[in-house]
């Protein structure tokens, strides 16, 4: 169920994050199984309940764990070569522990020093990353004294500090207040607009919707769907597409809709100014709607009602442990 491939078909393996038949077992416990992915630039969200394999996938991508079977390549690089991989990749993990006795600035700066940067570059890049996440005032304080949100932000600063082309972010919004969330979303979107690969795992589906160019849905260690949300939704044939139409004469429109062969169900909205229609072929339905609209009914808006991560997730996985 891969729709992303078509959008960025000009990309080679060296321009993608590729999983080829990757499985990971922790002893007898399944991490992920038979994963085949080809992730293009843009924001890609990993969505799934706890234990579905999101973090394992991220750890595999970054070489923190090694696949039991299969091969992984990040823009042509092998995750087993950290000295090359982490020049182009930054990973903000969920692990909430830090090297001891470091201030926020030292935490970011020591990462850059480990990369071998000269002191001047370290100073410049560290402060820039800290400013990006709005932690300038707290940068001189020990990380141990930070709140959860601040620790999240300093981890983000560390992941961002060396201007990586690939950003892997495990639950990056955890602990952030609404304003900080909005800032982060803008930051990730800006990175994606510059051609970066931003891989995000999240429980919060409305944020995934606002952020993502494509999603990877995981359940029990398996990839159940992958691609742009709209394409994924179109592939789910067993659940008819739902379309919300706002108009002045919903009852007249409902009569006409029922005449269409692709219409399954029509419901008049509670406020009497719209219809919710279920159809088994959304594309043909939209064509037919054009003809109906010409015949005197004033249509204010037409919008898919279940063409979002929320609905896709519910159809494919269910609604366990996910925040809307």
């Amino acid at each position, binding site marked *: 169920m891969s729709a992303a491939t078509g959008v960025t078909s000009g990309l080679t393996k060296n321009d993608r994050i590729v999983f080829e038949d990757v499985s990971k077992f922790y002893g007898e416990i399944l991490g992920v199984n038979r994963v085949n992915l080809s992730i293009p630039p843009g924001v890609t969200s990993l969505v799934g309940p706890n234990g579905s394999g999101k973090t394992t996938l991220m750890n595999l991508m970054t070489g*923190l764990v090694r696949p039991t079977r299969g091969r992984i390549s990040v823009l042509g690089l092998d995750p087993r070569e950290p000295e090359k991989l982490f020049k182009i990749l930054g990973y903000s*993990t969920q692990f909430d522990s830090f090297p001891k006795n470091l201030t926020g600035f030292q935490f970011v700066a020591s990462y850059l020093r480990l990369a*071998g940067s000269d002191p001047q570059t370290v100073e410049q890049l560290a402060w820039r990353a800290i400013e990006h996440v709005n932690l300038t005032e707290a940068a001189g304080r020990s990380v141990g004294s930070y709140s959860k949100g601040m620790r999240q932000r300093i981890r983000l600063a560390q992941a961002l500090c060396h201007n990586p082309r690939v950003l892997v972010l495990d639950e990056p919004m955890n602990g952030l207040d609404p304003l900080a969330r909005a800032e982060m979303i803008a930051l990730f979107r800006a990175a994606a607009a510059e051609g970066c690969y931003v891989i995000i795992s999240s429980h919060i589906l409305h944020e995934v919707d606002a952020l993502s160019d494509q999603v990877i849905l995981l359940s029990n260690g398996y990839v159940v769907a992958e691609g742009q949300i709209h394409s994924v939704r179109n592939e789910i044939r067993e659940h008819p597409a739902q379309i919300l139409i706002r108009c002045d004469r919903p009852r007249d429109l409902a009569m006409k809709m029922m005449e269409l062969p692709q219409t399954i169900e029509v419901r008049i909205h509670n406020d009497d100014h719209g219809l919710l229609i279920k159809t088994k072929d959304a594309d043909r339905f939209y064509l037919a709607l054009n003809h109906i609209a010409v015949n005197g009914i004033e249509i204010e808006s037409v919008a898919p009602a279940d063409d979002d991560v929320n609905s896709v997730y519910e159809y494919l996985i269910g609604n366990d442990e996910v925040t809307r």
Partner: protein
Amino acid sequence: MTKLWWAQIRSVIRLEMKKTFFARRGLWIYILALLPFLLFLSQFFIASRLRARNSEIAARSEKKLTEQDLHAIQPDMTSEEVIALLGKPPVRYRWNQRRRLDNGTFVVIPRETYKYSDGLNSLFLSLEDGKVVSINVQGFTLTGDSVVFAGVFQFFYLRLAIFFGCLGIFMNLFRGEILDKSLHFYFLAPIRRDVLMVGKFLAGLLATCAIFVTSELLQIIVFTGQFSPNVRELYLYHNHGLAQGAAYLGITALACLGYGAFFLAAGMLFRNPILPAAVILGWEAANPFLPALLQKVSVIYYLKSLCPVEIPTPPGTPALLSLLVSNPDPVSTPVAIMGIVIMSLFVLYISSLQVRRMEINYTTE
């Protein structure tokens, strides 16, 4: 590339030194390292007091005595003979002892003790009825004290203090970070895992050397400080004292290298440090009883060969204990140094293979 690696190694050392030197949980290592220093420091103070007392006694003597004079006294000499040889005793106690004879009657025996000194050594004489019955010459004998120093070094410092100190520091380089869930910080940096391992090992080596070599140096200073300037000069410049001191410092550094390499590897391979520590401790202790070839796969084998002072085993010492103390098949100094270096490099090579395979999987730890 080498320049980059050195820059990265320096960064790792900087981070690690901060952790190692300021860790509260490493306090016991400092205590362990300083214990022999405290022992020799207390000996230094006791010796200083005794020397001052002996000087005072010597100053009060009628004659200026030498060490030979003190040794000239024989049992059964009369008090007159003693006074003729050494002069009137500067310290003298007299009392009468009531003693029961075999026939049940009591006799009163006049008892005396004399104390003489040449300024360094002291002579205690016990006299009964005007005759010498016991002679005790006490002094600062270089040979005796350097054997005591060697004993403390070999049996406490090398085998226990440095051993457990290295265990505490080197095992924590990776295992401690896994327990703290902070190892991913290093594994997510653009640094080769083996370069990271070398950086961590060098940080551990610097820390252990700083702690244990410094403590050893302090021990040597207070040990030599107990002697009078003349004796000290004799010991240091004419009796291999300087060479012995340098050897002790070198052996300490080599012990940190050897044990460090083993414990670094053990910290990567085992979750529980007690098991490998017990195995290595057992292996090192059992070294004298192992076949010749296996003896060479041990840190203590080479270190024992490098020790500058041999510890004598008095006649009648149990065979097992003699075997522990003695070194029947020592190797030459260059071979011993090369042996430890090569063995450590080999263990580090194995560790470098292991570190490349390591995974961050805190949740299953």
